């Protein structure tokens, strides 16, 4: 490694890649070469830094200046001004949404400074393709310490004491799981990393794999030592090619350094990791389905017990943990159980990474201590709701989760509190909705997703979710019936009680929780044939305001259904029978004379 006076970190997370950070990086490198700064300034491509809606972003060290929404030309300016002359390019730095005041560095931006980064400690800071950078930030120290100074029992004890719980959704105590596997009969044993990440909109696991792959490998090796396993598998969805590539590279580098493979640190302990690429079905994230898929069978859940820790891969004891769970392990080993247990709430320790999305100013990845309130996440970190709209609800846990309405904004976000509200922590999807969201339509969206993704094995989920969808469908189309809400509730409870796996057991949550918190919205659809949020097309009536209509006739021209009639220069009229609710007329009216009821 070389010494440089400045490091420029260019985020190459998913969000920034899609806003073309590569072009920015190229332009930056070109400028640096042109200015002959290449011996002084190092450009590093990192994993996701988090503030995805600001992308492409970069950070210039040592000052830590955060630049955002960059175009290739901006990179030239940064090179010439900041890198060469040491002058911060003011117009490219972040402005806080409310005050509009400029924030120079990471530390000055609420989005960052309210976060506590444990799982994401390296993501966005190191070059994920460099094992050296990982090592420089204490990488593989935990493995080294475990192998040379701790017994397997001590490791398990420490993880148990830390209070770490699974971040993949169910929140099962990680140390306990390891202990089950360690104690289970059967050899060989396995360690599996669940990187299927099927929750639509979630990308924390991807970001960790792309931004800090070694942390997962190191943790898996630690678990291998603790449970007596010598082989690990990372199951990644095929939609994450970059994660696969980085992981492959990381595995190769780790093997080169002797950090994976046989006789690690000369202790006689051996551990290796292979990647398995999955087809990307949501249900393949369910642990037994995932294991079936690794074994080459149809990715379908099976009843538990036996749990994977007793009979997992090929019937052998297997620890399966989520990417984020793994990423927490090395810091826990290095900083101790008490340190970790000191963060978070009584039953939920540590931090949780959320993928903040929807109607919120700052979208992206955030890591906060358990117990942080929803309000803090949405308003302090997320910067509130855009366009002055009102916050309506937040959906946690994606399609398996539920919604939390405004009156519960001060709920501390931890496993128990969310479950109490009919939502779940889930894997960390956090979708913010404003007043323009129709909760029935939202429920319909999630049910459509799960009924598509159901593996089709058990009848309540396969058929029941379809029946829910059909009922929700008719409600949003204005054909809801008296008794539909009760039928949905009965079905929802029945599917939860009867389904084989977690997918079915949680699939009704979005429906049940929206009914619980927004029953009146369902009633409006069914009994008044009205969609209060104006989202459900079939329930929307387009009308022309006679006062404002000049009779220009533009609406009649653009209407594809010929639903608008009227005489020139006289107020026009829309025939609700013919109207397709496409909204074209409203868009095209120059006088804002058309609105919806």
């Amino acid at each position, binding site marked *: 490694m070389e010494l440089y006076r400045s490091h420029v970190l260019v985020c190459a997370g998913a969000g920034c890649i899609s806003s073309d950070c590569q072009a920015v990086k190229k332009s930056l490198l070109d400028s640096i070469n042109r200015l002959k700064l290449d011996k002084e300034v190092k450009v590093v491509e990192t994993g996701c830094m988090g503030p995805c809606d600001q992308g492409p972003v970069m950070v210039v060290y040592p000052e830590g200046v955060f630049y955002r929404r960059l175009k290739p030309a901006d990179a030239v300016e940064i090179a010439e001004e900041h890198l060469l002359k040491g002058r911060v390019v003011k117009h490219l730095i972040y402005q806080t949404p409310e005050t509009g005041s400029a924030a120079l560095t990471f530390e000055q931006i609420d989005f960052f400074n309210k976060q506590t980064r444990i799982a994401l400690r390296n993501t966005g800071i190191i070059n994920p393709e460099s094992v050296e950078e990982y090592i420089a*930030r204490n990488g593989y120290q935990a493995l080294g310490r475990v192998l040379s100074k701790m017994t397997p029992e001590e490791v398990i004890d420490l993880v148990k004491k830390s209070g770490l719980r699974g971040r993949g959704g169910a929140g099962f105590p990680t140390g306990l799981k390891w202990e089950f596997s360690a104690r289970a009969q059967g050899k060989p044993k396995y360690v599996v990393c669940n990187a299927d990440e099927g929750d639509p909109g979630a990308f924390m696991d991807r970001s960790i794999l792309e931004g800090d792959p070694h942390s997962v490998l190191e943790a898996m090796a630690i678990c291998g030592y603790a449970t007596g396993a010598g082989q690990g598998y990372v199951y990644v969805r095929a939609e994450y090619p970059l994660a696969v590539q980085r992981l492959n590279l990381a595995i190769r580098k780790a093997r080169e350094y*002797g950090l994976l493979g046989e006789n690690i640190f000369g202790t006689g302990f051996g551990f290796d990791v292979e990647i398995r690429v999955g087809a990307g079905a949501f249900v393949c994230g369910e642990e037994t389905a995932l294991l079936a898929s690794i074994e080459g069978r149809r990715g379908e859940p099976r009843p538990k017990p036996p749990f994977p820790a007793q009979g997992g891969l090929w019937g052998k004891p297997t620890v399966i943990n989520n990417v984020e769970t793994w990423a927490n392990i090395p810091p826990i080993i290095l900083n101790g159980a008490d340190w970790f247990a000191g963060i978070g709430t009584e039953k939920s320790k540590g931090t949780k990474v959320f993928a903040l999305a929807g109607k919120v100013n700052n979208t992206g990845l955030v890591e906060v201590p358990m117990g942080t309130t929803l309000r803090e996440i949405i308003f302090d970190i997320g910067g509130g709701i855009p366009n002055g709209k009102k916050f309506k609800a937040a959906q946690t846990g994606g399609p398996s989760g539920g919604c939390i309405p405004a009156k519960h904004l001060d709920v501390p976000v931890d496993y128990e509190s969310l479950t109490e509200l009919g939502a779940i922590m889930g894997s960390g999807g956090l979708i913010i909705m404003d007043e323009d969201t129709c909760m029935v339509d939202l429920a319909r969206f999630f049910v459509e997703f799960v009924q598509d993704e159901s593996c089709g094995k058990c009848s309540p989920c396969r058929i029941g979710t379809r029946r829910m969808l059909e009922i929700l469908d008719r409600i949003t189309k204005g054909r809801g019936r008296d008794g539909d809400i009760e039928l949905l509730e009965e079905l929802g409870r029945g599917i939860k009680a009867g389904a084989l796996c977690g997918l079915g057991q949680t699939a009704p949550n979005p429906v049940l929780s929206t009914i619980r918190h927004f029953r009146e919205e369902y009633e409006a659809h069914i009994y008044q044939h009205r969609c209060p949020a104006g989202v459900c097309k079939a329930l929307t009536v387009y009308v022309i305001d006679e006062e404002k209509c000049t009779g220009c006739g533009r609406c009649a021209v653009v209407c594809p259904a010929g639903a608008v009639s009227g005489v020139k220069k006289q107020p026009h009229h829309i025939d609700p029978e013919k109207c397709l609710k496409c909204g074209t007329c409203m868009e095209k009216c120059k006088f804002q004379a058309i609105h919806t009821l």
Partner: protein
Amino acid sequence: MKSLDELDKLREKLQAEMRIREGQPDTRVTVAMGTCGIAAGAREVVTALLEEMKKRNVKGVTITQTGCAGLCHYEPLVEVEVPGGERVTYVHVDGDKAREIVLEHLVNGQIIKEWTILKK
């Protein structure tokens, strides 16, 4: 990697480079890089500083640059600020002087008074 010790050694070597991203109170070496500084040879100074620091495995030092310090006729200017200590400004620095500054000031903690304008 044969042992934890070996890992520790490697880590320490590598950390030097990574400190720059930690935002910790480091010794700061600032080189004035305005047009005047660059014209006076500030670039060579930076290169020399970096080379020498690497050679001597100096840790906990960040090199930054500023614009013109308003002392154009003293350029190249190098400021060294040890946390909690005084700020020392070296003037008319060249490559050789830079190397010397690294050895004496950064490694041995001895300020080379004759090259400085001392500030409080």
